[in-house]
Structure formats: structure tokens, C-alpha cells
């Protein structure tokens, strides 16, 4: 194996031993699965309350309603679940990225690692890409599981594919912003809280402004896809949606490249 790939594999191993050690990865999996499941199952709870308050005594109605829920739950529940996915991502991804990148500045292991024959960009790139891959895989598995459990009839294969693309792009954007914060601040708490704060402030400001559509959809591809699948009143047109997704990808990659260049040029 080429020595460069060997060193990348070694860095991945190091990263898994340090950042994704027990119980960080397990808690992350549990949290994402729990939130996605709960968001998807919300309609189930509503349904239970409904039959409790207004029981139907014609014998088969509760069972029919239950079957209806699983076979043809409204798009509203689906949209609700997709929106619900944003919350764990906006909290977990900045935390994980800060734990991976900012922590090595905080505990000075970056000094040791940079004395080894590894490019600075490789070191940070491996960390950032691993966050994308790990959290992307967990979220995809959780989402697909919940979709097939609760909404088997409500989502087409194309929509599911679109959703998975949006999840990965959303994670890429969050990781890029958190990487930038981590390299600039070099503090875990400041980088994590800074990214979470930035994200919510940004969304609030954009929602209040007149240009909300395009900017919001580029920065939040998950919301763009969710509103499309949900058939919401305000949703990007089918023509615009792929453009927004491409712009999201370009923005995410550009922010990541800026982080790497910044790290290459700065004193450690």
C-alpha cells in the first residue's frame, strides 16, 4: 500500500480511538435514532389520544385507523419527521466536529501530530471527513429505518434518494462551519456553541428577511427537500431544488477548503 494511504489509514484509526471512543459513538447513534423515531412516531401518539377521547364503537374503526396510520400516514407526519431531523444534527455535528478538531488544539496533541510526516490539510481533512461519514451513515440508517417503518407508502424512491442527498449535504455544511469555528477559536466549547448559535441565529435572520427562500434552502438543504416532499405551500420548485442542492454542496466544500487553507497558513 502506498505510504500516504497507510498514514491516512493510521490517522483514521487514531481518530476512531480518540474521538469515537465509547460511549461517544453509542450516545450519538442512540440520540439520532431516538429523535428520528420520536419525530416519526408523533402521529402515532396523536392517534392514540384521538381514540381515547372519542371512542368509536362500531367495532373495527380503531383497528382501521391504526392500519391507516401505518399504511397511509399523512405527508404532514413525514414533513414533521424531516424537520425534526434538523435538531439533533445542528447539536450533534458541531459538538462532534469540535471534539475532533478543536480538542486537539486544546490538549496540544496537534503539536505532536504535526511533527509526524502528515500534511496539515490531511490531518484536519481526515477529521472533518470522518465526522461527515460517521454522522451521515448513522442519520441515513436511522432515517431509512423510520421511513420504511412509518411511511412506506408516502415516499417514493426518488424522494428517499433526494432526502439522503439532503442529509449528507446538511451534515457537510454543518461540519464545514464547525471546522472553521474550531480552527479559528481552537476551543471545544466556543467552537461547538459558536456553530450552534450561528446556525440558529442565521436561520432566524434569514427567515425574517425578504431573501429567505434561496439563502435558506442553500444553507439548509434538508429543509428544502423536506418542504418539497411535504408539499408545503412555500417550497422550492422541482426545477430549482437540484440547483439549491448543488449550491449547498459547493458552499460546503468551499467552506471546508477555506478551513484547510486557513490551518495551512496559520501558526500553531
Amino acid at each position, binding site marked *: 500500500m502506498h505510504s500516504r494511504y*497507510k*498514514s491516512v489509514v493510521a490517522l483514521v484509526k487514531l481518530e476512531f480511538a480518540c474521538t469515537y471512543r465509547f460511549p461517544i459513538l453509542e450516545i450519538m447513534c442512540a440520540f439520532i435514532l431516538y429523535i428520528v423515531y420520536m419525530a416519526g412516531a408523533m402521529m402515532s401518539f396523536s392517534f392514540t389520544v384521538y381514540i381515547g377521547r372519542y371512542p368509536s364503537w362500531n367495532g373495527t374503526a380503531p383497528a382501521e385507523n391504526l392500519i391507516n396510520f401505518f399504511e397511509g400516514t399523512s405527508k404532514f407526519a413525514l414533513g414533521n419527521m424531516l424537520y425534526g431531523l434538523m435538531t439533533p444534527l445542528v447539536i450533534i455535528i458541531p459538538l462532534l466536529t469540535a471534539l475532533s478538531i478543536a480538542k486537539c488544539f486544546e*490538549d496540544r496533541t496537534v503539536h505532536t501530530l504535526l*511533527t509526524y*510526516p*502528515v500534511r496539515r490539510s490531511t490531518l484536519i481533512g481526515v477529521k472533518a471527513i470522518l465526522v461527515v461519514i460517521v454522522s451521515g451513515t448513522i442519520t441515513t440508517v436511522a432515517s431509512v429505518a423510520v421511513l420504511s417503518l412509518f411511511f412506506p407508502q408516502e415516499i417514493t424512491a426518488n424522494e428517499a434518494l433526494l432526502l439522503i442527498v439532503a442529509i449528507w449535504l446538511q451534515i457537510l455544511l454543518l461540519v464545514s462551519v464547525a471546522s472553521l469555528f474550531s480552527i479559528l477559536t481552537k476551543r471545544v466549547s466556543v467552537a461547538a456553541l459558536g456553530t450552534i448559535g450561528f446556525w440558529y441565529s442565521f436561520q432566524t435572520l434569514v427567515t425574517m428577511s425578504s431573501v429567505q427562500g434561496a439563502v435558506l434552502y442553500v444553507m439548509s438543504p434538508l429543509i428544502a427537500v423536506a418542504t418539497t416532499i411535504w408539499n408545503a405551500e412555500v417550497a422550492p420548485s422541482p426545477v430549482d431544488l437540484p440547483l439549491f442542492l448543488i449550491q449547498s454542496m459547493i458552499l460546503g466544500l468551499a467552506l471546508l477548503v477555506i478551513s484547510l487553507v486557513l490551518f495551512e497558513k496559520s501558526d500553531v
Partner: protein
Amino acid sequence: MTAHVISISGITKDFPDVRALDNLNLQVSPGVFGLIGPNGAGKTTLIRILLGLVKPSAGRARILGHDVAKDSLRLRKRIGVLHEDPAFPKELKVLDYLEIVAKIYDSEKEPRRLLEMVDLSYAKNRKIGDLSAGMCQRLGIAQALIGNPELVILDEPTSNLDVIGRNEVLELIVKMHRDLGVSFFIASHILSELERTCHSVAFIHQGKIIEQGNVMDVIKKHTEGKFRIRTSDSELLVSALNDIHYLEAADATGPTTITVTIDPHKIELLKAEIEKVAKSLGINIYGVEPAYALEDAFKEMLHNA
């Protein structure tokens, strides 16, 4: 083979409020080299520049023929480094960490043998976070040697160690140089250790090299005619010694030590004189000895700087 393992010309480093290095020039030949300086003299900044962690404001440096700014990656394959107060991933086990570092270097060196060499085999399955400072230092030396380096840069390698640990590390350095031909660049302020270990030294003060050369030459140059008097009250004795006309200089270098400069032929005469003066002042004299150590040379240089 490169004539100099390290060649530094005109390196300057300005921080917002201080100039850490000031047009520093230094040539280091293969062997064990010591960079000596008080805290804040610029030793660590110089090492960080050599490793490419910090960019100099001006000047350039080459290690093993590689420009540290332009060819840092290839350079790092050929050197090993131990930082002052080194930080390693605390969650990893000692052996696991060394195996990962060996893979990063693509090194054939067996981590278990390196652990034996630094006497850390018994702790191979311990987490790094559970190691003592001395054990961490030995792990640091092991990881610095794992890539078969031609040059090892050590920043205060014995700062966290007790006397026995220090001796072990110094012996290891000498052994590595003797058996494997590895050159060492050691930055430290513990002069007695450098005197025992290094072939040549340089003194850094306020970001400048104020002296450089072979250890014995440097000591000889700065301690010729110097003697150290150990007494119970240096201040009182030094004021009395000022009246002795053949004494070239007398300075209280500590609460119980005085360093005098005198023609070596007149030292017996001085000893007799000191005994008399001490008796009249009611103070004790514990000994008079040649001030022939790196520490004495360093003090003399700092005094003159």
C-alpha cells in the same frame, strides 16, 4: 552527507508585543548539540520554527538540506521530535499509539523493541493518560525514534524527570548517537546535563546566539582564571575582598557563592588571605574550587551580555 544538520540564517520572529528571535544565525554539525538559554530566551520558538509550526517573520532555516518552510513534509520523515511537556492522545494504550505512529511513518521499526529500549515494556497496555510524567517522557523519546530519524529534536527532554530518570534519558541519547549515529538537537536550561551529553553548544539570550562552539572550548574561554568560593555569607565576604589588589574581579553569584577572577598562580595566596578575612568577619569558608563548568561559563556570558 550534509555538512550541517541544521543551518539557520537571519531568523527573526516578531510576536505582537515582543521580538522572540532577532536575526538569529546558527550552524549545527552532526553530533549531540545543546541549545542553552534561560526561560523566555527563544529556544522553544526556534524549535517551533524549525518544525514548521510557526512561520518566521524573516530569515530561513534548513534541516538535513530541506528548507523548513517549503519542504516540511519530506523533512519530517527524516527527523524525530519530542516537545517540551509533550501531549499524546490520553485515551490510547501505549503500544497501540506507537503502532499507529509507526504506520504514519511507514516504519519497519518494531514498537515493542522501542518500548524495551526506553524501559517502558511493562506499561505497554496502560492508557497514556495513566502514565507518570517520566513515563510520558520516555514514550516521547520512543515515538521520536520510531521513524528511524537522522536527527532528533528534543525540547527540555528531562524537565519532568527525577534524577534517575534524567540520567536514563541522557544515557539513552548518548547510546543512540553512539550505536545508531543519530544526531540530537537538545534545547534545555539544565546545563550540567548538557555539559555531560553534548559535543557542542550554543547560548541563546534575548533571541540571539551569543556564543557557540565545542563544549570544552566554550567552558575554557569563559572560565579561565575563575574560581568559586563557598562561604556562609557571600555579600559580606565580597565587600571585604574588594580591597585585595591582585584580585581582578569578585562577584556574589549566590547567597553562599562568590566567583572571583584571578591569575591562577596567585590562588594559594588568595586562599590564605580569605581565611584571614573570614576569621576577622566571623564567617565560614567551605571551599575554593575552579569555576570550570558550563554553568559558570553561562553565568559569565549572561553577566557580560
